């Protein structure tokens, strides 16, 4: 008999397809995974602690850096939590603007994830196609607030500035341009024989496991659980729009990509409705004081980010600085299922799984 032993392989933190600085310690038997253990913390920047020494407003730029592919949604989650804590009302127009930018950002984030999931399987072209469309959205945001990645656009009680001239037309143009592209991507990647062979029945996550691991967002919905905070606990003005929650069947990597693709379709629907019905009026509640001092107390608020349930827990001691901020990161919970679903699969599958969970390390390590 030949003596064989298992091989330990360090995937990451410097590896082309771990989507950031993830390190997975993989125990391999040939190419088959015996054990996979994610190791995180390479991008830790002490977000929660540093917030304690800043005023409430100064925290907004930090939230940009959490889940950097979807900064607007982070801004929204944090602003809404503080507004809930301080009891600030938001004008109607600002709510509409917030929904529009959040959904645009959701599309941008899903495009990134969808393209990268193709790249993990070796299809490089789809990644660049997705980036071409993402560029359109980033240009829109640049028009809106001057920044292309970390927007710092939302304020307590509204947004920092009104929609610029031509923004609505440009966004409508984008929606019309983007809708046929989604069908194209579906044909190009999801219905591709090789990709569906690679992604179907790979990394199956059962409904019970998904719920007990606290998975959320597309990862949870791909298992067939119809849970979306935009519908279940409607925040902002989401209850005024007509949209569906796409769900998957098997909870495999293909379903996750499919759910993301469908969500892009739904986001376009929401944006189109919001652009049609956006009211005139104030874009910022002018009653909000410069130096915000929320009353003593604590509050938790969660919204649906592109990765899942993003929540902020804020404790206030009545001063101008938060006593404690805790962020509930969806990608962290989603990533924790790697040790559960990867044993028995091949090393190539692990890469597909990591891509399908869409981790963002700015948010996981914080």
């Amino acid at each position, binding site marked *: 008999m030949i003596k064989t032993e298992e091989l330990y*392989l360090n995937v990451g933190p410097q*590896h082309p397809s771990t989507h950031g600085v993830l390190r997975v310690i993989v125990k391999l038997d040939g190419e088959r995974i015996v054990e996979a253990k994610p190791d995180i913390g390479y991008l830790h920047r002490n977000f929660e602690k540093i917030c304690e020494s800043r005023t409430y407003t100064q925290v907004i730029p930090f939230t940009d850096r959490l889940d950097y592919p979807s900064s607007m949604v982070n801004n929204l989650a944090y602003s809404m939590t503080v507004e809930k804590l301080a009891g600030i009302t938001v004008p109607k127009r600002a709510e509409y603007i917030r929904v529009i930018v959040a959904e645009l950002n959701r599309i941008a984030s899903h495009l990134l994830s969808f393209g990268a999931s193709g790249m993990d399987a070796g*299809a490089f072209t789809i990644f660049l196609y997705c980036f071409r469309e993402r560029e359109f959205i980033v240009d829109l945001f640049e028009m809106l607030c001057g920044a292309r990645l970390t927007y710092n656009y939302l304020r307590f009680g509204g947004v920092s500035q009104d929609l610029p001239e031509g923004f609505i037309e440009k966004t409508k143009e984008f929606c019309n341009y983007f809708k046929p592209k989604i069908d194209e991507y579906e044909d190009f*990647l999801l219905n591709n024989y*090789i990709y569906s062979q*690679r992604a179907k029945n790979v990394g199956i996550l059962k409904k019970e496991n998904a719920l007990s691991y606290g998975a959320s967002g597309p990862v949870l919905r791909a298992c067939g659980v119809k849970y979306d905070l935009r519908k279940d606990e409607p925040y902002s003005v989401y209850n005024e729009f007509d949209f569906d929650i796409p769900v998957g069947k098997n909870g495999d990597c293909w379903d996750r990509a499919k759910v993301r693709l469908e969500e892009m379709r739904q986001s376009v629907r929401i944006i189109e409705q919001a652009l049609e019905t956006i009211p005139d009026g104030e874009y910022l509640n002018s009653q909000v004081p410069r130096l915000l001092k929320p009353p003593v107390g604590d509050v938790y608020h969660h919204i649906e980010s592109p990765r899942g349930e993003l929540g902020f827990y804020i404790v206030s001691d009545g001063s101008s600085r938060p006593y404690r901020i805790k962020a509930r990161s969806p990608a962290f919970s989603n990533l924790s299922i790697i040790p559960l679903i990867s044993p028995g699969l091949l*090393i*190539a599958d692990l890469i597909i799984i990591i891509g399908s969970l869409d981790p963002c390390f700015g948010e996981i390590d914080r």
Partner: protein
Amino acid sequence: MLLSLIFIIIQALIVFAIVGAAVAVTLYSEIKVASHVQSKLGYMRTGWHGSLQGIADMIKLLLKEEILPGKIDKLIFLIAPYVAFLPVFLSFIAIPLGPGLIVKDLNIGILYFLAISSVGAIGIIMAGWSSYNKYSLIGGLRSTAQVISYEIPHLLSILPVIMLTGSLSTVSIVNAQEKVWYIFLQPLGFLIYFISTLAECNRTPFDLPEAESELVSGYHTEYSGMRFGLFFMAEYTHVIAGCAMATILFLGGWRGVFLPPFFWFLLKTSFLVFIVLLLRWTLPRFRMDQHMYLNWYILLPLSLFNLIITGLGILLF
């Protein structure tokens, strides 16, 4: 004696020049095809539309410092790129570029081509083993499995052509296609040949030994400088050799009307190379087990079936 030696050296240099030029053009077109598929521009700065980029890259690779990692198996590590490149280069000896444009018309030309071009895989295994890197090792192992498996349908898809011609010489195969190209008699054979050539050259969708999203760069992860360049060249030379052989076996070699024979050969080979490049930027990659499944369960039975049909056809007509 001396005269014949000089003659051989000149021949080798000419072949090397042709191969080098072909690789440079392929490299350039790879980027350009990729760019146009991906709606971007690609090389635009060096020369007209970046046409001198290949030369610039080559100079860069030649001048670059070669890094030898610690704990490598030095001898094997150093000679592996040559073992990978030389056999592929030598396979051009048996490829006729036009009537009389061949280094040596071996009477076992096809056998020689098949034998020598698969020696290159040993270089890849050597590189994977000696690099002292787990990614390289996995890449090398994948490559071994891939080349050994795909050799069989590769061979069996050529066999019907040899049966139809009755000769192993590449020149007589081209001559035998005077009336009809073998692609019309052997469409299935051509398809199997083309797919298995892709696998032998480690091209997408079978680029598992160097799958960059899984294995960083596979077997050549630790290589730098000109040794990396040699692996790179070996891959492109292999693609060109494979496509040139496909032209000879199935597309009537240099046969065509109006244009000189050499141009026809070039045209057909370029077309096949173009398809290979296009595939790379269109398709995702197979997984190892699916890759093996495709070979043993689909390509092998199909090529055996093709062989039987061809045998029956020859017997009956």
